[in-house]
């Protein structure tokens, strides 16, 4: 386990939208090891989402190298990237992104369908993942029958169900009230303590304090990359985290 999980070398991303090019990333070099919990912060437009999409193989960089588990994935085609997303990376979006007409169970099964997992095993694994995020009693609920926090848990279960080597989350608490946000963060914290690698984008300092390391972006560049020696633990109580939220 000596090779880092993620190695980025001079990664750039340029969006060409007709009139002018937008330089979203201007040369990012960094490494992330297995079982790290990283928070990415930075002002709006600094390139956080762009970076996370590339990390999640949802997009390709314009130049530079991206080694994922030692393999250069920066030049892979659509289907090869799809395979990595399907087998290795669990992605959680700000807007939950669930199929509106499908039950929680069906939503969590979705990646397994594309992995070719047979129905019976699919259901078992999806149920286990939903139980792991505390939704064992909501299997047949549809997204519109769930609260925002519960929806985000379904999305996290969907990320977990493939047993990913990397979990990515783009402002997973952005659409939630503080209490629900705290619950989600405790869940991430717990997943991290179980050995998962997590990279999470956030605007909020108190969210970032759950992470072990904080990377700040500005104008598509890494502004700072600092360890957080005392990440908030799973054991922090709800009142404590409210205080933290209130103080930040």
């Amino acid at each position: 386990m000596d090779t880092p999980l993620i190695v980025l070398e001079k990664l750039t991303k340029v969006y060409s939208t007709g009139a002018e090019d937008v330089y979203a990333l201007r040369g990012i070099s960094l490494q992330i090891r297995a079982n790290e919990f990283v928070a990415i912060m930075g002002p709006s437009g600094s390139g956080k989402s762009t970076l996370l999409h590339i990390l999640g193989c949802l997009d390709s960089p314009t130049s530079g190298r991206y080694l994922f588990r030692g393999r250069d994935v920066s030049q892979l085609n659509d289907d090869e990237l799809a395979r990595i997303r399907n087998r290795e990376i669990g992605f959680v979006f700000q807007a939950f992104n669930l199929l509106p007409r499908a039950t929680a169970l069906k939503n969590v099964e979705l990646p397994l369908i594309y992995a070719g997992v047979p129905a019976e095993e699919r259901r078992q694994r999806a149920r286990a993942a939903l139980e792991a995020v505390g939704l064992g009693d909501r299997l047949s609920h549809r997204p519109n029958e769930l609260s925002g926090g519960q929806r985000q848990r379904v999305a996290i279960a969907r990320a977990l169900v493939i047993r990913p080597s990397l979990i990515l989350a783009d402002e997973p608490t952005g659409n939630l009230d503080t209490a629900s946000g705290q619950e989600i963060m405790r869940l991430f914290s717990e997943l991290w303590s179980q050995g998962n690698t997590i990279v999470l984008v956030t605007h909020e300092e108190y969210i970032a304090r759950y992470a072990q390391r904080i990377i700040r972006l500005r104008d598509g560049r890494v502004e700072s990359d600092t360890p957080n020696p005392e990440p908030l633990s799973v054991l922090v109580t709800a009142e404590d985290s409210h205080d933290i939220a209130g103080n930040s």
Partner: protein
Amino acid sequence: MTLPEIREAVSVALEAIRLNFFRSLLTTIGIAIGTLFVCLMAWLLYGLDTSLNRTIASLGSDMLYADKWDWTGRTRWTEVRSRKDITYWQARAVIEGLRTAEFAVPLVWARGARISAGPITTTDAVVTGTLSLYGKTPSGTTAAGRFFSLAEDRSATPVAVLGYKVAQQLFPKQNPLGKLLHIAGIPFTVIGVVEQQGTIFSSFEDEQIFIPLPMFVRLFGLTKRSFVIAVKAGSEERLELVRHELRGVMRRVRGLAPEAPDDFSINEAQAFREQIAGLRQAVWGTGISMSMLSFVVGIIGIVNIMFVSVAERTYEIGLRKAVGARRRSIALQFLIESALLCLVGASAALAIGNAIALLVRAAIPGTGEFLTPYIPPHHMGIALVVASTAGIIAGWAPAMRAARLHPIVALRHE
């Protein structure tokens, strides 16, 4: 592509159709009409062919008929009309001159004779004079009783063998065997009834009364009648050989100069095939062009609605791609949807087509003889394959657009 992916594609496609059921039904009308045309065309042609094959079988596929008249209608009418009759003596000379044929037998017809049986009188039947050998051809095969014998032939016994329709007309609901019948005032005993032969192409066969040729001569005389020589080749492989000889013998007997064209025709049952080739082509042409038109219109409609479907579900496509759906999984989902759309239309068309088949048969008398009360099953199969192929063609461009969507771009869409 794995089984779970394929099942997912099918269930997504089914759900998409179910959610927009009326829209789906409307867009599929073009395909339905196209399918209907194809099916009705196939049904008509199937009926024609069935009838044609029955005609050919009843005339005998190894039979040649040397006649003044051309059955195909290919020789000019004025030319045929100017041909001289084939006389009894010519017919005899030809029959005696043939070496390669299994046998040959003369035929001669008289129309308009007054025929009566008990209270029933008719002048519609055709009296046919021939020899006992004719009983060995397919058109002389009896369904009841027997054909007349060589002895009855020779001794000019007044016996008659009836065509199917004549038997029904003269002896309704009775067994005609052994009954008496008057032809031009002369009594005949009915000894046999020939199998039903008529089809839409010719009902003439069933309207004949066969009597021994000497009796015919006694009743109607020999002049002003053209004989036909029915020649049984023995097998279809021998047809060419026998035809060649028959032609030579005919020319010699008719005394034709080497450079003169034939003043007779050698007909065969296959001639009917040529006769309806035009009809077949007309049915085909109409059916194919109408259905092509409908299919084109139908496909355009489906392409359109599939693009709408892709646009409506862009977000869902983005989500599926984000969790690892490959291009082919997404493409398959939409191809199945458009193929299913077309299958729905085609199935409706098959139901309507079968209803039409039933109705036409019930409503138009005579059609029951050659049309089936259903669309031939293998044609229904073909129609379904064609319709789903049309669906796949129609769905192709939209499916490719869906498959190539960028997951992030698609997820932002809403």
